[in-house]
């Protein structure tokens, strides 16, 4: 018996010596990679007038100017929708602009990003637009090495690779969708907005580009603010590029001020010298994603937790902002998962998870909910002239809120789900 125990001991010992190499775990990761397809910029820019019937597949920023809706097709271009009759919106044009995420319009000039470049486009004839100038590298964060070329498509390819096995407690591998995983759309400049100027359109609250007077203010990446002189659209010129804060997401102009919504607060900038905004301070809140809008007396900020935003707050904060240098919290309202918001007069609309909530904001310290519109995943709204425009993954909805307590649906422009 001793011999057998000895034999077993020898086998175990030999195993201990020989097996470590065989004890290495094997982890294979299969993922989908996208290989960019490049096209010469000259070719792309010469074919900017696209097919008006271009399918609506991945809606992005919304923007309104006069009787038109400009709806960004994420990274592809801009749908132009004739909204003379909000009950029957009609797609009348599509502008092929690869990499586009943002829109701003002053007079007959549309400003749009094409990845890192900024285009000034004459839209006097919306069916036959003309590019009148290009500012190269205005948004350097989105320059993916395409100086002469631009990404016009992606080739999908499934790939399997060996993954190095980490020892110790099991932890998460890189996860698709996290900031560390893939190139995201983070650095986008977004739609422009301004108050008090009849020649400038109106953007949603998630914009990261704003037109004020002769200047276009752009968040090129989450820490900076670029100022571009657009007084002569045929000669776009960078005026300044400053460090503005941390994790900046949205921009909203109010009077001669800029409010920059960040994941940790709201940064305030003065436009007394419009070519070079100067910091006035900031209002801090818990970490969360936060579109911000304002009226002359109050600022409204939605805080959203989850995804890459971090934090656990889901609320609507109303800030007293009569003196923008002395912003203070007025009241906080609990929300489900709020996103974009808009205000027209005393009516406040807030995208909140499965609904768009409607509030009577006559007294900002005591908001009264008047109702809600069931639009799942709505991410941004524009309210103007008693017509509410709601953007969601399923399409573009319009409502008549002449009577805020009895809102009437006007139309629904569907997004092709099979192309998502």
């Amino acid at each position, binding site marked *: 018996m001793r011999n057998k125990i000895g034999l077993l001991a020898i086998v175990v010992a030999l195993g201990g010596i020989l097996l470590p190499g065989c004890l290495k775990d094997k982890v294979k990761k299969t993922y989908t990679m996208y290989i960019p397809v490049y096209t010469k910029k000259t070719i792309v820019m010469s074919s900017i007038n696209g097919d008006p019937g271009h399918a609506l597949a991945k809606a992005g920023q919304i923007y309104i100017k006069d009787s038109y809706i400009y709806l960004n097709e*994420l990274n592809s271009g801009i749908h132009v929708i004739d909204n003379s009759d909000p009950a029957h919106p009609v797609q009348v044009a599509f502008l092929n602009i690869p990499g586009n995420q943002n829109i701003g319009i002053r007079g007959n000039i549309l400003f749009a990003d094409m990845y890192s470049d900024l285009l000034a486009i004459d839209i006097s004839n919306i069916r036959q637009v003309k590019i009148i100038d290009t500012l190269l590298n205005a948004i350097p964060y989105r320059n993916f090495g395409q100086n002469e070329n631009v990404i016009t498509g992606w080739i999908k390819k499934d790939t399997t690779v060996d993954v190095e096995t980490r020892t110790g407690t099991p932890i998460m591998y890189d996860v698709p969708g996290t900031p560390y995983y893939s190139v995201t759309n983070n650095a986008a400049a977004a739609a422009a907005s301004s108050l008090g100027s009849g020649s400038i359109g109106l953007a949603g609250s998630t914009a990261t580009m704003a037109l004020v007077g002769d200047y276009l203010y752009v968040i090129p990446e989450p820490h900076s603010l670029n100022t571009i002189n657009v007084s002569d659209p045929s000669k776009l010129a960078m005026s300044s590029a400053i460090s503005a804060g941390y994790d900046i997401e949205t921009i909203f102009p109010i009077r001669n001020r800029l409010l920059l919504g960040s994941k940790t607060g709201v940064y305030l900038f003065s436009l007394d010298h419009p070519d070079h905004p100067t910091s006035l301070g900031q209002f801090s809140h818990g970490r969360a994603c936060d579109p911000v809008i304002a009226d002359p007396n109050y600022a409204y900020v939605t805080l959203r937790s989850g995804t890459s935003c971090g934090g656990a707050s889901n609320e609507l904060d109303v800030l007293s902002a009569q003196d923008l240098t002395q912003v203070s919290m007025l009241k906080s309202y609990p929300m489900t998962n709020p996103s974009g918001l808009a205000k027209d007069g005393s009516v406040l609309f807030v995208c909140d998870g499965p609904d768009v909530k409607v509030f009577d904001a006559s007294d900002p310290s005591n908001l009264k909910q008047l109702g809600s519109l069931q639009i799942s995943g709505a991410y941004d709204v524009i309210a103007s002239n008693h017509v509410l425009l709601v953007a969601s993954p399923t399409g573009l909805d319009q409502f008549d809120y002449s009577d805020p307590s009895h809102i009437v649906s006007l139309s629904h422009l569907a997004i092709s789900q099979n192309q998502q």
Partner: protein
Amino acid sequence: MTKHILMGSLFVLCVTACFGQHAGRFRSDSYGGLSIGQMGSYGQVQTVNGLARGPWFVGLGAGLDYYRYRNVPLFLSATRDLLANRRSALFFILDGGVDLPWYKRTPLPYQNLTSSFRAGPFWATGLGYRWRFSDAGRRALLFSATYGAGKLTERQTANGGCYDPPACTINSGTDTFDYTNRTMRIGVGVEF
């Protein structure tokens, strides 16, 4: 996974039925011990119940293994005595079956993620030693040392981690991870 289990169960039924026709006796081997591999040492238990005839023992085994991701091996086990006398024996072990996952990933708060595991094949081979408490008794103390591998597959789907709200759809994606966990298992057990 259901297909694997059904095929394995069918095979076990066939084998045990064959043994049954030749008057094999019921035997139960149960072990507790460690699974040792690159990720460290984790607890494991298993039991094999089947029929023994002569130097052979064939049975259906089930276990619980905490190596890397908790899993339940379900397998057919065959052993053969190599060197035996009345009180003790050295025996060869061969196990094969499926590894069923029993693990739920808890993503970190910022990871808007869903995860699901799928079963994969499992095998192990090694040596064991049996020492009976008495010459005539059926109870015995068991020692085993096996080397093997179990495979689990995980699908991780991100649900729109997003910086700029309209851009959410771009970031969605699914990754598939195939984990082949190679371990040495040592165990102490009893036979009835």
